[in-house]
């Protein structure tokens, strides 16, 4: 599977988790792709932690408004019915449990629902931005990540080694190999990419793995 297809597979699958009326915060990078796959008839409100709801698609070239940017600082648009607010209200919304789903990437995620996503000591310390509040505050935390690092190591760890973004908050992990439910010390494989066998997935996963009795194949986006 090409890198692009693997990313789309993850984004497509996560989009199926969203319910009509959900308020959703999508992290920068891979999670942003989820927008493209939201099923028809499902009305989702995207929250941008820098201060608005109703985040719309990027503007046409030349129509950028420098005062409408997403949490990555990129020009975006606001949809009808959207609303701007200040950062204190934005994080009151986030921490207060008013965001139904947050989707974000990971450096590591473990079998206890711990997430590491914001620093590699001695190497990269960009800062946590709004991630710590999002992961603690959102009702449902979904991690969107490729299953392994570029060097082939599992990102689904027994226990995170990197500094945490938050402890025990992750509900679901969606990778290019499968869909995993965090289960207090193990990860339950709910769905798998039909390209891989359970054995291949087990070999690529450091976290203790359980296999759902209802294991099924992930749907591949058209």
């Amino acid at each position, binding site marked *: 599977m090409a890198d692009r297809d693997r990313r789309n597979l993850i984004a497509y699958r996560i989009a199926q988790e969203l319910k009509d009326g959900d308020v959703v915060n999508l992290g920068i990078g891979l999670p942003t792709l989820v927008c493209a796959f939201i099923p028809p008839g499902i009305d989702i409100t995207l929250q*941008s932690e820098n*201060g608005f709801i109703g985040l719309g698609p990027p503007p046409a070239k030349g129509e950028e408004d420098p005062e409408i*940017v997403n949490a990555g*600082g990129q020009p975006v648009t606001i949809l009808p019915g959207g609303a701007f607010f*200040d950062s204190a209200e934005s994080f009151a919304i986030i921490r207060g449990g008013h965001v139904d789903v947050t989707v974000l990437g990971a450096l590591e995620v473990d079998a206890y629902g711990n997430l590491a996503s914001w620093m590699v000591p001695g190497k990269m310390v960009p800062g*946590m*931005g709004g991630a710590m*509040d999002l992961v603690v505050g959102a009702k449902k935390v979904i991690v969107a990540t490729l299953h392994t690092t570029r060097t082939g190591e599992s990102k689904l760890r027994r226990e995170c080694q990197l*500094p945490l973004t938050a402890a025990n908050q992750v509900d679901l992990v969606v990778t290019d190999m499968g869909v995993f439910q965090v289960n207090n010390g193990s990860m339950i494989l709910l769905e798998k990419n039909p390209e891989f066998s359970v054995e291949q997935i087990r070999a690529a996963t450091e976290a203790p793995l359980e296999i759902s009795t209802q294991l099924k194949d992930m749907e591949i986006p058209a």
Partner: protein
Amino acid sequence: MAKIVSVKEAAAKITSGSSVMIGGFMTCGTPVGLVRELVKTGVGDLTVIANDTGVQGDGIGMLITADAVTHLIASHIGTNPETGKKKIEGTISVELVPQGTLVERIRCGGAGLGGFLTPTGVGTVVAEGKQHITLDGQTYLLEEPLKADFALIKAWKADRKGNLIYQKSARNFNPIMAMAAETVIVEVEEIVEVGEIDPDHVMTPHFFVDFIVKGGEIDG
């Protein structure tokens, strides 16, 4: 009652060694004209409190390039590699604070509260050295207020008294910082007469604002 001054007069008020809150999110809503002028004054040894340090050479990044900042309290520095470089070299000390905690600490300072309990950061390095308080089985960190000598903020419109309106996602940290600093300087795109702003639309009431600077353009 706010006073309308030139950007030069405004920038000259900030003395070396001051603590300065600066509004904006990656230059969106940052008072770029004020920051540019501040760099020209040659001020140094600043403690800057801001969400981020913009990008290299723009927004708060201009102060980083100029070595004007010795201490930084921010939630994110990844968009300006120069900040990370100076952090590693040891010329800037950086305190990273979760964005929600950062803005709430500023609100706390402005609102006369002594602190607040947040679940954010429990079980992470952010919790180190902080008081933990458990209520109803949930553990929280006690976070303390932030105040500053100056706040440099960006608004869309001011009336001559200093009532402010922000626009779109450029609002972000600006109205909160306006409440938490001893002296508040705002850069605006437009100054209107008193009475032209609907009292229901005012986002920062005038008494928070000390000086108004008319900026040239939208610096996005």
